[in-house]
């Protein structure tokens, strides 16, 4: 009889030793996004094409503002981690390091910009 769970045996394996945690982080963020994104698509799609006053009114709604902020934080983290894996698969050396820094920064800047916009709109 095995006393160790499959997860316990997987932790720490591989050259980076952190793949299990990475995979679990992606699993958690994907499930969170799966619950949030369809509703957000409806809210965003309804606001798109409206006047500025209507857009501001739509995103000033507490539910819309909080959902948008959550999607920015969770979604941009999910993007940065996924894009990092893609970069690590296809590039090496200095190019890899610069690209990983670039996508991580891009994701952070996008999230920060979106949250700044929400604060100005909703508060």
């Amino acid at each position, binding site marked *: 009889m095995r006393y160790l769970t499959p997860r316990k045996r997987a932790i720490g394996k591989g050259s980076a030793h952190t793949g299990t945690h990475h995979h679990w982080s992606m699993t958690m963020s994907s499930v969170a996004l799966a619950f949030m*994104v369809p509703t957000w698509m409806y809210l965003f799609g309804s606001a798109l*094409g409206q006047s500025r006053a209507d*857009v501001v009114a739509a995103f000033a709604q507490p539910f819309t503002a909080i959902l948008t902020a959550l999607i920015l934080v969770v979604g941009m983290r999910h*993007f940065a981690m*996924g894009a990092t894996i893609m970069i690590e698969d296809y590039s090496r050396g200095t190019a890899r390091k610069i690209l990983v820094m670039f996508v991580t920064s*891009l994701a952070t800047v996008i999230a920060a910009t979106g949250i700044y916009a*929400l604060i100005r709109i909703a508060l």
Partner: protein
Amino acid sequence: MAEVKSSSPRRVERPLSPHLQIYRPQLTAITSILTRITGNALIVGVLLAVWWLAAAAISEDAFARADAVATSWFGDLVFLGSAWAIWYHYLAGLRHLYFDAGHGLDIPTAEKLGWGMILGSVVLTVLTVIIV
């Protein structure tokens, strides 16, 4: 690629795995790489959406500029593409969770799920365009 330097006697000529180009394209491989492509391409739609939202927060002029792009044919194309990419990536993620739980890994089931993702993402995109 597999050059053996005489100065490093420990390096051995290892067999290379068959190259990607000699394989006939398979549904499972294509649906897998499309997951990565859709996920990463979504950054374009996110950039446009966040620019548009930030412009709405800042000023009338900024919003007029961003809204002109976001509601142009280019904006329509980006957001229509993003809607499909979201749904495709969404179904691929669900399939990933199902695979992770140890189900559906035999080839007939995996291929059925692959077609389900392709057709499902198109149907959901059409529904999104109708509803929104």
